[in-house]
């Protein structure tokens, strides 16, 4: 398939010099309207100043010559990054996990951590403000921030966070050993792509225990996201410093915590890469814009809103290479579809709006992007589709239930937890306000903003679909964040190439500090229940060593680090899901007794379950301890283990086959 031709819009750009990226290694004097003085040595460091754009493009662009940054400045900034990194890691290593309370990790962090964070933020802003754009140093500063802000869990705890990580390891282990899927066992097997990938890694290397990879996944995934985020931001902004600042803001506000070893993290990385590739290589109108009134009016409207749109695709590969890249994009869509339920559906509105705003000339791609996940759901995940029609479509169109209803559900639990939830809502609102202000300012300055705004808003088209287990808004925030971050930086980073200046840099540092501090709270606000200890895992291992295959294993509250092995060998049950239950009734012995009635069962109550129950108020305060004391003394209950990680009971069944 050869890319379609890209006729330009009939409307002349309202600004004579729309902003676009040209500054690469050599400063970027290759702007269409840029001029150089003919001296080779000087043009190498020249950057085009778009002084006129701010005033409607009436003033021709001037050339600003930049001196190279002084070596001592570069060395000082590199040293600053190294000090921030060392202090950050050292402070995280000194955290006492027992001090992590209801508001999360922030309670246990030493003051040095915030010094490290501040140094990291200052290092980035100072690097951004160097006279010469220095991508390598900016990359180093962002990497330091990623380690300090997003690698706290592996450094502090040394174990995977979230119980889902452990389940994911178990599914991958099952596939690696058997090479098969069991859709009756778990809905995950209907979208097995990511687990197949992990299973392939495990099977081909002989490494059965991928716990280390799961532990360090938050760091690895954020590092893998850097290049796609930068490639995407480069296509959304007017100059490289805006793009770097956009990536920086993304990391500062990415609190959703989906960056564990999960299909959604993998699919998100594919999504960002796909969009970056499409905007880079296939940008343009999908149809001639002068022939029909509708297309003419559309092109005129887009040009009026953002005159830079028609200039934003930069790469022009040969047709054969473009065709190969199209196949790559289709392959990414297929891999994403096979791996995750939601992400491929988020792609559809984004691509459709890109087509309608002249940023994607492949008019059939949104259709392919829709056909793939729908076809997968109907034909491949057919068992799930037929069995969950009510869940899939039951709340279709119920916008209030899918938005406010889901948010309201989350604003509950212990007082500390509610504070964290409110901080999250405030941070989301702050990011969206910054993005909106950035979009308005960019529109007035006639610089690039429309594609980022469209990308930020498009995922909201999924709102009428379903609440996605109450997590839809969280996921939509994540999908829109790369775009919203690029809009937010437009407030402070100028469109002309060159250093933003100290006043803007200080403002950027203040904004970054506010966001970083909020993210320490919001990202790690559930750390007390999302982290696990070696004692928790040790208790699970002892349970596995004791319970015969085929046993029923019960967890009192769904927050146990288990299923990372023997995924299909046991019948796993839970008494209560780990979620807020207003006016929760005390646990009774009846529920586990009923489950164990026939064949008997093992009941595990870990410290992590108790923490989750207290934090979310799943049970009344202290109820799990009371449950252990009273039910543990019941006839037929035998305490098998009582360790620092928790307790395990064996409940005798009537047949007592086990």
């Amino acid at each position, binding site marked *: 398939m050869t890319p379609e031709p890209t006729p330009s819009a009939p409307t002349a750009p309202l600004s004579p010099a729309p902003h676009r990226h040209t500054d690469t290694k050599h400063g970027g004097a290759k702007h269409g309207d840029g001029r150089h003085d003919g001296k080779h040595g000087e043009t190498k460091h020249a950057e085009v100043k778009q002084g006129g754009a701010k005033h409607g493009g009436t003033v021709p662009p001037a050339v600003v010559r930049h001196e190279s940054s002084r070596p001592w400045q570069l060395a000082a900034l590199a040293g600053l990054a190294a000090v921030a990194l060392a202090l950050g890691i050292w402070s995280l290593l000194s955290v006492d996990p027992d001090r992590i309370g209801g508001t999360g990790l922030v309670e246990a962090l030493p003051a040095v951590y915030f010094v490290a964070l501040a140094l990291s933020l200052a290092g980035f802003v100072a690097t951004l403000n160097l006279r010469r754009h220095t991508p390598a140093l900016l990359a180093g500063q962002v990497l330091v921030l990623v380690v300090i802000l997003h690698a706290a869990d592996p450094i502090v705890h040394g174990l995977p966070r979230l119980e889902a990580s452990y389940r994911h390891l178990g599914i991958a282990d099952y596939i690696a050993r058997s090479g098969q899927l069991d859709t009756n066992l778990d809905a995950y097997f209907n979208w097995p792509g990511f687990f197949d990938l992990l299973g392939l890694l495990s099977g081909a290397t002989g490494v059965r225990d991928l716990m280390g990879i799961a532990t360090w996944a938050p760091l690895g995934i954020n590092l893998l996201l850097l290049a796609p985020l930068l490639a995407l931001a480069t296509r959304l902004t007017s100059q490289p410093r805006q793009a770097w600042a956009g990536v920086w803001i993304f990391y500062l506000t990415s609190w959703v915590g989906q960056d564990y070893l999960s299909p959604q993290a993998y699919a998100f990385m594919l999504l960002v890469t796909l969009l970056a590739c499409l905007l*880079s290589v296939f940008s343009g109108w999908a149809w001639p814009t002068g022939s029909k009134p509708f297309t003419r009016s559309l092109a005129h409207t887009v040009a009026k809103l953002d005159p830079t749109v028609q200039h934003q695709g930069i790469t022009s590969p040969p047709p054969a290479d473009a065709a190969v890249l199209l196949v*790559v994009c289709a392959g990414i869509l297929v891999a994403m579809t096979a791996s995750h339920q939601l992400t491929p559906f988020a792609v559809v509105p984004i691509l459709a709006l890109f087509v309608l705003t002249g940023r994607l000339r492949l008019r059939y791609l949104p259709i392919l992007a829709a056909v793939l996940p729908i076809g997968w759901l109907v034909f491949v995940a057919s068992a799930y589709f037929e069995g969950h029609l009510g869940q899939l479509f039951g709340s279709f169109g119920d916008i209030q239930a899918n938005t406010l209803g889901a948010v309201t559900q989350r604003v509950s639990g212990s007082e500390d937890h509610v504070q964290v939830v409110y901080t999250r809502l405030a941070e989301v609102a702050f990011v969206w306000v910054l993005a909106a202000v950035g979009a308005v300012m960019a529109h007035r300055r006639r610089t690039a903003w429309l594609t980022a705004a469209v990308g930020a808003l498009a995922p909201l088209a999924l709102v009428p679909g379903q609440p996605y287990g109450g997590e839809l808004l969280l996921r939509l925030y994540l999908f829109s964040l790369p775009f919203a971050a690029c809009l937010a930086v437009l407030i402070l980073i100028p469109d002309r190439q060159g250093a933003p200046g100290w006043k803007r840099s200080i403002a950027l540092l203040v904004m970054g500090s506010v966001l970083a501090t909020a993210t320490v709270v919001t990202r790690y606000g559930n750390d007390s229940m999302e982290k696990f200890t070696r004692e928790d895992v040790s208790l699970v291992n002892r349970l596995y060593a004791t319970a015969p295959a085929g046993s029923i294993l019960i967890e009192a509250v769904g927050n146990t680090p288990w299923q990372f092995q023997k995924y299909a060998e046991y019948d796993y049950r839970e008494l209560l899901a780990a979620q807020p239950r207003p006016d929760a009734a005390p646990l009774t012995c009846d529920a586990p007794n009923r489950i164990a009635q026939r064949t008997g069962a093992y009941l595990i109550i870990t410290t992590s379950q108790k923490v989750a129950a207290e934090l979310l108020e799943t049970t009344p305060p202290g109820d799990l301890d009371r449950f252990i004391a009273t039910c543990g003394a019941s006839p037929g209950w035998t305490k098998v283990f009582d360790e620092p990680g928790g307790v395990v009971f064996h409940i005798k069944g009537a047949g007592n086959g086990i």
Partner: protein
Amino acid sequence: MAFDRKYVTYAVGGIAIAAMPLSFFGPEGLRLVVIGLLMLAGPGTALVRLLRFGPPDSPEARGTLPLAVSIAVASSLGLSTIVATAMVFSRMWSPPAAVFLLSLVTLGLLALGARRSRGSLAGAR
């Protein structure tokens, strides 16, 4: 730059060749590093080496490093996912065979890239 490209080619080719026997035997740590790298970036890096994002030495071509890295990683992981998923659905699960296939694709793309580079150089002369 050509120096870098040459060594990237050697490294990717070396990983692809080493991964084939390592998918059967070898120390676990070494197997994890080599096969992990192949799945993470092998075929994609070879593909990116083959592609041209714009006229050589143009700002467009130079400014696409983040995009090239992204495509290298996403296409490698995507291909690994598709191969593994196809094997599971066709009930032909064989991780060493999948690694062999990924290695072959990588080496094939590297060979095509080398041929194309030679062609470009000859054309330039």
